[in-house]
């Protein structure tokens, strides 16, 4: 990561030297895509906000990292706060925003301090050249749902963090009704790199951050180019399984992501597959049913309760999974769970409800229906 050091604010100087439209061209050219999980082309998003007509615009850096198994944003803001802020400043300049928020997970006290220090560390003259933009550090009330873009916007507006229906998209009517650009920490931290090395070089050398956790020897942050396989991440970067037990599965993209079994170890992880880059590895000693139940409990707890399918579905899911089966016959319940899963996926308002049963679906598909009956 040392190449990321921006001590001389080179990226800022470079971005300042060109027109906002050219910044956006450069970003588009770099091929940067959202690294928070959605993978949306960043240049296109910036352009939408740039072109939106409004007397006020906002940039929000999403550092509400609530997904279990992800800790990359924390890593970045604690170690490279200047890069995050440079990214924010360039984004503001590019889209024409005078105000921005860095929305921090409540638990990230240390990150808050380092960001605060970094904000103060910028040379005032340079900041002035940017038109003295306002960067506000904002501590969220806590909770998984605060990471959802529209919920996060509600939260800054002083209301309960609750997802909103789209359209309108935040890029059209976001914070206080104004066009708003929201990017994840990792995405914005990549922006200065683009200006440091130039779009083309950047595109060739781009590396995504993966957070590997669970039953591996060396849990941690690993950088790898898209297209890396799970095998490389688990067995090379993380040095293999923790004990002698065999690899059973990995949750790629965290608890709302997809399940990779040993058959999938050689699939290439690109934007469509790696999600936010969280890889939770489980060995053969883990109970599938417990895995599903833990995740169900998590979502029942984190569902904001706004929409019927998710509010009722998540808790229903949890309740059914908690049942004890004396005669090991859960087939009727399995039918209900499958129905719940389909309905939740198809009708929930936001990503939480739509992905809460991903892991369940995949496990049933890959490991068979019996999961419910086994211990």
């Amino acid at each position, binding site marked *: 990561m040392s190449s990321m050091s921006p001590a001389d604010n080179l990226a800022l100087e470079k971005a300042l030297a060109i027109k906002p439209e050219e910044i956006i061209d450069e970003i588009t050219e770099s091929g940067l895509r959202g690294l928070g999980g959605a993978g949306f082309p960043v240049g296109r998003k910036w352009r939408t906000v740039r072109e939106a007509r409004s007397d006020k615009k906002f940039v929000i850096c999403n550092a509400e990292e609530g997904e279990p198994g992800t800790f990359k944003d924390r890593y970045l803001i604690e170690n490279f706060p200047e890069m995050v802020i440079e990214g924010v400043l360039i984004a503001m300049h590019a889209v024409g925003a005078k105000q921005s928020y860095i929305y921090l997970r409540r638990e990230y006290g240390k990150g808050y301090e380092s960001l605060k220090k970094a904000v103060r560390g910028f040379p005032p003259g340079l900041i002035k050249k940017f038109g003295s933009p306002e960067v506000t550090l904002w501590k969220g009330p806590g*909770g998984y*749902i605060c990471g959802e873009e529209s919920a996060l916007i509600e939260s800054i507006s002083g*209301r*309960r963090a*609750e997802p*909103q*229906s789209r*359209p309108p998209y935040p890029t059209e009517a976001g914070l206080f*009704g104004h066009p708003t650009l929201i990017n994840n920490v990792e995405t914005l931290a990549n922006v200065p790199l683009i200006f440091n090395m130039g779009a083309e070089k950047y595109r060739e050398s781009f590396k995504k951050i993966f957070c590997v956790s669970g039953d591996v020897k060396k849990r941690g942050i690993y950088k790898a180019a898209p297209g890396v396989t799970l095998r490389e991440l688990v067995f090379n970067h993380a040095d293999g399984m923790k004990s002698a037990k065999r690899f059973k599965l990995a949750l790629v993209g965290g608890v709302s992501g997809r399940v990779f079994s040993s058959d999938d170890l050689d699939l290439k992880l690109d934007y469509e597959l790696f999600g936010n880059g969280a890889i939770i590895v489980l060995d053969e000693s883990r109970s599938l049913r417990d895995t599903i139940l833990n995740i169900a409990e998590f*979502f*029942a*707890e*984190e*569902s*904001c*309760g*706004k*929409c*019927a*399918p*998710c*509010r*009722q*579905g*998540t*808790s*229903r899911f949890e*309740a059914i999974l908690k049942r004890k089966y004396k005669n090991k016959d859960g087939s009727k319940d399995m039918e*209900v769970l499958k*129905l719940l899963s389909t*309905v939740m*996926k*198809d*009708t*929930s*308002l936001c990503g939480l409800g739509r992905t809460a049963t991903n892991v369940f679906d995949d496990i049933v598909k890959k490991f068979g229906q019996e999961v419910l009956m086994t211990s």
Partner: protein
Amino acid sequence: MNETSTAKTVSLTIDGQTVRVPEGDTILAAARRNGVDIPTLCFLEKLKPIGSCRICSVEVDGSASPIMSCVTPVVEGMKVVTSSERLSRYRQEMMRFILTNHPLDCPVCERSGECLLQNRTFELNVTEHPFKTIDYKKTAVDDWNELRYNRNLCIFCERCVKVCWEIQGFGALEIGGNGYNARIIPTTGETLDCDFCGQCLAVCPVGAISSAIVFSARSWEIEKVETICPFCAVGCSIEVNVKDGALVRNTSNDGIGVNNGNLCARGRFGHESVQSDDRFKTPMVRKGVKLVETGWDEAIGNVAEKISEAVKNDGPDSVGVIVSETVTNEDAYLIQKIFRAGLKSNRIETLSNMLNPKLNSGIFDELGPSAPIVPYDQIGKAGSFVFFGCDAEKENPVIANMVRVAMRDKGTPLFVANARNPLFTPSARQRVRYEYGTETQLVAALIGALNESGLPDNSRADDPSAFIKTAESVGVSEALKSAGVSEEAVRRMAEGIKTAGSPLIFLGKEIHDHPKSAQITRALSNLANLTGGRLLLYREYCNSQGANDMGVGRSHFPGYLRTDSDQAAGYYSAKWGVEIPVFSGPAPDTLAELVAGKIKVLIVVGCDPITHYNDGQFVREAIQSAGFVVVTGSYDNETGVLADVALPTTVAAERDGSYTNNEGRVQLIRKAVEPAGQSRPEWEIFQNLAGRLGMDISYETCEQIAGEIAEFVPGYHGLTHNRIAQGGALVDYPGKSSDVEGYEFDTVTVSSDGAGFPFVAVIGNSLFHLGVASRHSKALNRMAPGPCLEISPDDAAAAGVTDGDDAIVESVQGSIKAKVVVTERSSNGVVFITKNFENAPATHLIYRKSPVTRVKVSRAGG
């Protein structure tokens, strides 16, 4: 310009049928527009789509999962299918989800029969669900002061949360807790401490929110009578709910009236006043020192006798009447007719006309064609709002709701100028605070700034010089010295108003009661005309406008024909078939005449001047000087104590008639319950009196009087009860807003000597009380048991009072006790005191000879 013809449209297919709808329609709106129904549960027309129930799903070509029709806008070429096997399955599934924790308490639920959930369950044919209810921690119903919340009945549609935020601007409710443990909680602390408008109760599709006023009737036992709220000038439609002849509650209905289902606390919870134990029910006459009960015959006979005697001895002008602005148009018309045509007396007044004739019966003389009576639909069309000396949120709560909706849907900016700092949500684009008394200076400066930067295109002034004359003679910076407003702020506001275009300027009660109200209004009228805007005048009571329209006031006959004009006298002589004299110019005021002993018989109709008019002690003495006092009303009051004859009158829910509201809309009030005791509507009482006096004035019904109004009164032509039965009708006031003139106004500031009395007192209404009747509702008295003194933190510290203290508020004229509310709403040097409390009337602080009321404040018992 025809809006629909220029708006863009989109074409799409719904269930195979190709339709063309306005751009911006949601799929649901497009479907309903074309007669296709999609079931909904959380959706409510007046709120932004919520999207919580997920019932309204449809299939859209190209989307793997169903789309929620209520939140999704149409796009060109979209193919929508509104019913399919998958959709019915999903909709049923949603219903099962929602019903999971909704116990089947229908038989004991007060919403049963009018519950949307019940209806949808039936329509979607949901008969069973596979989930057993997880026992939600069975807590008792939450006590929210005036409301009750039952978590077990709540289906989390979130309408309550949204209505409180979007329409009421309070944000008092939110979802607390997550997922299955969610519940609706107040944001105001332990319990609910809010406007108690009951908007949340009204929009709740089930029985989860209920009123604290226990209500023991089932929906099918109730008859709903559509009528008009009698508590203020907004003129909201309400439904009076009657069971077995008893009024059990008021409800609102989004489909009727001007208010789109919104009400304030008074309209929704003030109904106990109708069946209050305090109702005055039997005619009384004074026998010696005591008032004793009697029959109508004796009472009216007595009054007729005294009137005849006075007329015989001292002439017609020795009989006077003060009429409440809460009587109906028909009452008002009849009373003035009896006086003018029968007695030939012009001694007829309302309290507002006694105080401020120029903004009441004289408004058209004062401002002619641009008199500020503006239809509410202008609120949706305005380019910007200017609240001038106006606290819309408190004064005209439901107009404030309309303003909020315009701000939400159209982004209309709001500008506020006030001597205090009244709040409004959503917040204003700009607020300026001026020194009380410098209003015309500020307006002059605004006009000056506008003139300097160039008038907007939609200015109505062909030749602006007349509008600007005064402003120019003052100069922007000069004007601002005393106002205490920065030049930059004034220029910014002028520019803001100009850019947004067509301001709708709201005058508040502070201006209505201001010593220079007429000058300020003229000044603002110039501002409005220069910027293509309009003024919306403040009216206080449910028929303030109508009472003026009906000629209750010495200067005008009904329809604003001047009483000193030959022509007008001729007009009514011809219509009424008797010789009407030309009443010479405005006579000295009623109180002065009383004190001078010129009025021998005084009739007070429906109001309590001692409590509600300035300087109550003086009023008391004045009334005592009349030889014979007749008081009519629905409750005992201070003025009633002085009565020689006291006559019980019905309240609005007990009679028919019409009111004319703030926007000049005549609306029908309907009888819902039988009159309490022997009470009668005013027109009946006066009809009876006319008979006893041998006058040739006779009507069988109230409707008949309305018929005559519709025939004779300019502006009211054709407005019979039949005609106004549905939605009312706007009065056609004289003049067209296109021919406007500039008014001269003076920029003399009002100053007052602060020695010993450091604070200027602004006296007004609270959300919970207005006039006489609200004090007889237990619920409203719980919400506001007595007067409040709003004072700024600095001033409170200086006066040695803290929030919640009882304070003594003292002026040169009198003193009252009030509860201290320390708030930023008050600015330094200006306190606000709520009136309408007969036990502590703030009006008693007003000294009629000093233009500005100043007070000092100290801690009671301290």
